[in-house]
């Protein structure tokens, strides 16, 4: 159950549903410029906003923001409602509220904005695919879906392509904070054969260069940088008892 601000619940509590007659009267007065009538009409229909917002609410959408955006739909409906046509206000208002809610969801649910009509068609296609899968036990072809929905195959293909799920490569995917980028990264030497060959060549050259060092020079470097005999296969430079004694004293 999403959190509802106290001010909203107060508005709903203090403004019971209007009768059709009251709606027409308030709407006529609002048309003539009565601000109090407009306010009353808005507040009395706020439960409709709440009901629609709850229906469209998803975990990745902020409910308070969705409620605010849906309220904008209600304001539009109040301003455009024509009481002389004889329809109930809620019949007219719910379309505006739904439109505002969907537009907000569409603009905020993904990083790439897709037109609302395309998103709605995508959801229609997905539902139809699921329905056909349940019925036939296999994934339907695009032609089958096209026939069922009444849209051409290219449009269905394009809609599915443009509404694909977008995953951020840098977003944390688990509790340890690993990202998709870190999982994809392959640090093995076999990724790029050219780099591997270059590295091998460099190592060969350095190995050759190391043979240019005199025993005394190499011994000094080993002592200076703490490279022990165990870490090196070459036994040319074994530690003398004097050196071992000195190192033990240290």
């Amino acid at each position, binding site marked *: 159950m999403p959190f509802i601000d106290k001010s909203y619940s107060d508005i709903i509590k203090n403004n019971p549903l209007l009768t059709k007659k009251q709606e027409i009267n308030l709407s006529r007065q609002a048309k003539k410029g009565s601000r109090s009538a407009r306010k009353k009409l808005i507040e009395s229909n706020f439960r409709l906003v709440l009901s629609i917002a709850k229906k469209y609410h998803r975990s990745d959408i902020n409910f308070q923001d969705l409620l605010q955006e849906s309220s904008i739909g209600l304001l539009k409906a109040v301003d455009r409602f024509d009481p002389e046509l004889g329809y109930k206000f809620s019949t007219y208002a719910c379309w505006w509220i739904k439109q505002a809610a969907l537009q907000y969801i569409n603009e905020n649910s993904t990083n790439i904005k897709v037109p609302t009509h395309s998103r709605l068609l995508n959801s229609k296609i997905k539902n139809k695919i699921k329905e056909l899968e349940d019925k036939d036990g296999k994934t339907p072809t695009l032609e089958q879906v096209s026939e069922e929905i009444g849209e051409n195959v290219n449009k269905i293909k394009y809609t599915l392509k443009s509404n694909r799920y977008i995953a951020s490569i840098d977003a944390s995917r688990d509790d340890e904070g690993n990202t998709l980028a870190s999982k994809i990264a392959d640090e093995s030497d076999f990724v790029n054969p050219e780099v591997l060959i270059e590295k091998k060549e*460099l*190592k060969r*050259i*350095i*190995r*050759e*260069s*190391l043979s*240019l*060092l005199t025993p*005394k*020079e*190499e*011994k*000094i*470097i*080993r*002592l*200076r*940088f*703490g*490279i*022990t005999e165990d*870490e*090196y*296969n070459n036994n040319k430079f074994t530690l*003398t008892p*004097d*050196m071992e004694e*000195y*190192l033990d004293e*240290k």
Partner: protein
Amino acid sequence: MKNKKYVTVTNSNGLGLHDVAKVMTKTGHKMNHSTVRNIINRSFFKLAKNISDNYSLDYDAKKIDSISKTPGFQESIVDLLREKEL
């Protein structure tokens, strides 16, 4: 970040220049800490020059000297000396 000027030896059980000089003197190579430093510098210069020649880089002595004294270069050589199968 300030560039590193020296290769650190504190975390690799390495000895200071004075200590290296003492060990070398005890083993029959009489020398002081300055000599140790000069031998180390000369050794890295020798390595840098050979690598430069192999890659036909045609660097002058001054350039090779500055490369051989960079911590990055010295650390790489030390790492390779540590590898068993170099």
